């Protein structure tokens, strides 16, 4: 793929990606408007924290610091009517702050770290040689509720409610555990996308240095869905047993969630067309039609008080699990995976040069701030109570600032920023420092050896 092509795809991706709806302000009951956004960028947006994060320790005094690191990061802006400004880059926190305050973008995206400053890429291009290439990038994941439309009946498209949101919680749990336990990553930031999904940033040095091929391999490790719109049976689990990762996800997260929540909350068996959808996953047509007929007869007339979904699910399991065929027994798991396993937009994870919306942006449609989510407490995250721009401004207006305080401390954003600092940023910076120290020492040793020799 040529450089130009990829950069074009990124342009296009923003158009086509998850925020398909046009960014337009002024339609929010809460009164989202450019003026409010100005105040937000003026008083609340945590520039210093963002800068320290994206510097990864290179803003210090250590001799191993790479002072050009932050400046080589692409930041991009989106304005009303989807006008983009790509390839912004800044030397330091205050440059970034001034630019954002001045331009007041509706959306800020973070791109990769390039070989040279993105804003000066043309100047470098003059010198021949294809020097403008991405060299580092967090490993990112993007999960969007609109990809779950065929398994939720409460909402569709851009909407979410507390009935379907737990699908996101499940995705966080499955991925977070695997990223830590299987891949050994430690510095993982989960962020609410402001509307109907979550973003994940894996920030370990090792993750940032992955090649595209390695990124793809991780994305594929997580992938159980095959085929696009034209394939009914999307999950296909083969082999005598499940891979430990899938088995763990199934027993620790998916199964319980499916049986205890999703099944009844989404009424998966209470209506014919819904149960038909489940039955379509069963490869053996005679079994599927047998169940179908059985449920036809006693529509909800069941004598017991038990929930019809639970009853039918148990019946289905019983029929499948008592069958002799291996494939059918696996089918129970396939159904659970189909309905609950995280649906990733894998293309986002596979390439270094995809953009992803920065944390602490305000979603222009909902007015909600993209706040971090604590993966160890994700069950308690409620997207419908994430701070909104108008609430924050009200909180600012209604309280007095004491000298020692930062503005955000008086608002409900304070909790999020504190969490960002204590749970993500400071452990991250600590390990960056260690890594830098080690690198420096080993280099020093090497050059000393070289001298001896």
């Amino acid at each position, binding site marked *: 793929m040529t450089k130009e092509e990829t950069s074009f795809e990124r342009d296009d991706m923003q158009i086509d990606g998850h925020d398909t709806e046009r960014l337009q302000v002024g339609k929010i009951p809460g009164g989202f408007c450019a003026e409010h956004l100005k105040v937000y960028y003026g008083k609340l947006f945590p520039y210093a924290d963002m800068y320290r994060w994206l510097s990864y320790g290179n803003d210090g005094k250590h001799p191993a610091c790479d002072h050009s690191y932050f400046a080589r990061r692409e930041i991009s802006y989106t304005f009303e009517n989807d006008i983009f400004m790509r390839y912004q880059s800044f030397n330091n926190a205050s440059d970034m702050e001034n630019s954002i305050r001045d331009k007041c973008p509706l959306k800020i995206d973070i791109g990769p770290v390039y070989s040279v400053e993105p804003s000066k890429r043309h100047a470098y291009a003059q010198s021949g040689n294809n020097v403008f290439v991405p060299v580092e990038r967090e490993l990112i994941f993007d999960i969007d509720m609109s990809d779950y439309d065929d398994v939720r009946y409460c909402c569709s498209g851009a909407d979410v409610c507390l009935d379907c949101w737990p699908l996101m919680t499940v995705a966080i749990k499955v991925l977070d555990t695997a990223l830590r336990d299987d891949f050994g990553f430690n510095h993982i930031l989960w962020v609410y996308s402001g509307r109907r999904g979550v973003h994940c940033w894996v920030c370990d040095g090792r993750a940032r240095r992955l*090649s595209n091929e390695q990124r793809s391999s991780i994305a594929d490790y997580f992938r159980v869905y095959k085929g696009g719109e*034209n394939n009914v049976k999307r999950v296909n689990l083969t082999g*005598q047993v499940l891979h430990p*990762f899938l088995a763990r996800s199934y027993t620790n997260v998916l199964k319980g969630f499916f049986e205890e929540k999703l099944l009844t909350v989404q009424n998966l068996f209470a209506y014919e067309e819904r149960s038909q959808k489940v039955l379509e996953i069963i490869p053996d047509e005679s079994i599927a039609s047998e169940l179908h007929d059985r449920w036809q007869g006693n529509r909800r007339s069941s004598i017991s008080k038990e929930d019809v979904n639970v009853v039918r699910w148990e019946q289905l399991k019983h029929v499948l699990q008592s069958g002799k065929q291996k494939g059918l027994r696996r089918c129970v798991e396939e159904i659970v995976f189909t309905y609950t396993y995280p*649906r990733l937009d894998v293309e986002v994870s596979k390439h270094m040069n995809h953009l992803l919306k920065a944390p602490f942006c305000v979603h222009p449609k909902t007015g909600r701030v993209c706040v971090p989510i604590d993966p160890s407490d994700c069950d308690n995250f409620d997207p419908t109570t994430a701070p909104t721009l108008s609430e924050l401004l009200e909180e600012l207006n209604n309280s007095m600032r004491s000298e020692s305080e930062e503005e955000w401390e008086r608002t409900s954003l304070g909790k999020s920023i504190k969490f960002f600092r204590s749970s993500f940023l400071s452990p991250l910076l600590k390990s960056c420092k260690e890594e830098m120290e080690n690198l420096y020492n080993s280099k020093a040793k090497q050059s000393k050896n070289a001298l001896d020799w």
Partner: protein
Amino acid sequence: MEIVRSQRKVADAAAPPGLSLYRSAPAVEVRLEDFELYSIHRLRVLQGISDGLSRGKKPEEMEKLVKELWRTHMRHQDPSEDMNKDIISHFVLRLVYCRTEELRKWFLSMETALFRYRFRLESPESQRTLMSEFQLPYKSISHAEFEAVKDKLNQVARSTGQLSNALISINLCYMQAPFEEVPDLVANRRVFLLKGFAYVAMTQVVSLVSTHFRSIVSKALVLTNRKWTSTIRDKEKNRLTPIVEALSTSYLGPDYSQPKDFSEISLKDIDRLANSSFPLCMRHLFDKLRENHHLKHGGRMQLGLFLKGVGLRLEDALLFWKSEFSQKVGPEKFDKEYAYSIRHNYGKEGKRTDYTPYSCQKIISSTPSVGDHHGCPYRHFSEENLRAALGKMGVGGRSVDDILDKVRNRHYQIACTLTFEAIHAASCDTGINHPNQYFDASQKILQNKSQTTS
């Protein structure tokens, strides 16, 4: 490596047969004819591998294929010459394929695949020798380590359909490597991962070795490129350069990036042509576009570039897409957001690079997800949907069973070839490997028919 004109090469000291890591160019003289001939032979092998991979052959089938290809093309009458031929041809092709990113990528993938399957064919002893040549920095896991993860290793082995009981006895044959080094095993969930380490079974070390092979060749290609541009190209401008330049294009297959001028098509014919001459992948996109007045990015690229290759001029392409998209998103949004990418496809926007229509291989290996319609129907449709789609194209009866049979064996392009043959009642000996080739071949047949009838 010295290249000389037509004289016997100076015999090299007997080199041990087997696999080379191509660390350095051989210190032998090469006749100019051999220079060219050897590399053509090797190219046949690489091309064969490329075809095999794009047909979705399974590892075992690939192994057989590579063995066969190697035997037919790379064996020399004089066995002691085999190794030389191997090394010389590799180094010549490095020169040929070092010159652009695209070429490097192709060469690297094919050489790595070749190495991989040749490695699998080696005896365990020589595999071990090669491993030590690589100086791979991994050690086998200890007994205690093994005990700790034994169950998981078992589970992985069984999940991938390998035998389970034999595990205990070969317990020391696992190596711990950073997961980054075995991307193929990770992608297919064929290893157990723990805290960033992959537990690689001895039978899987080929992955580790290939990764290292790949990185050696990859670095070498960049160096070769530098040398090529800085010195070799000019120094050899009368001798090697023409050969090298000819080699790289003659075997990449036809170039569909520029429509041939005689084959320009006009907008009013497009529905007729879609019916008669589009391969299924494009038919499907075309129909979906007419139906939904929208296609996602992957679909727009796949169909858009195809239409360009077919000869739809930019102005017509804009009209065509606009007439559909504006029904859904309105003309303004189209102009603002989508027109750009269409002009871009034609190299009229951005850096004006021209995009090449996708080959079957590229389409087959794409990964459409929910809501996408691009990809190759033979690969990405369920059987029912494919059956229905074939019916719509007018393919029925025995042919459908034959086609589905190929699909089940993952021979997608052959399935497409059979479809072509069924529709056109004519054979297609070369097989389908590019949607634009499908179109061209179809048009040729139809034009011949209309000539003979009129």
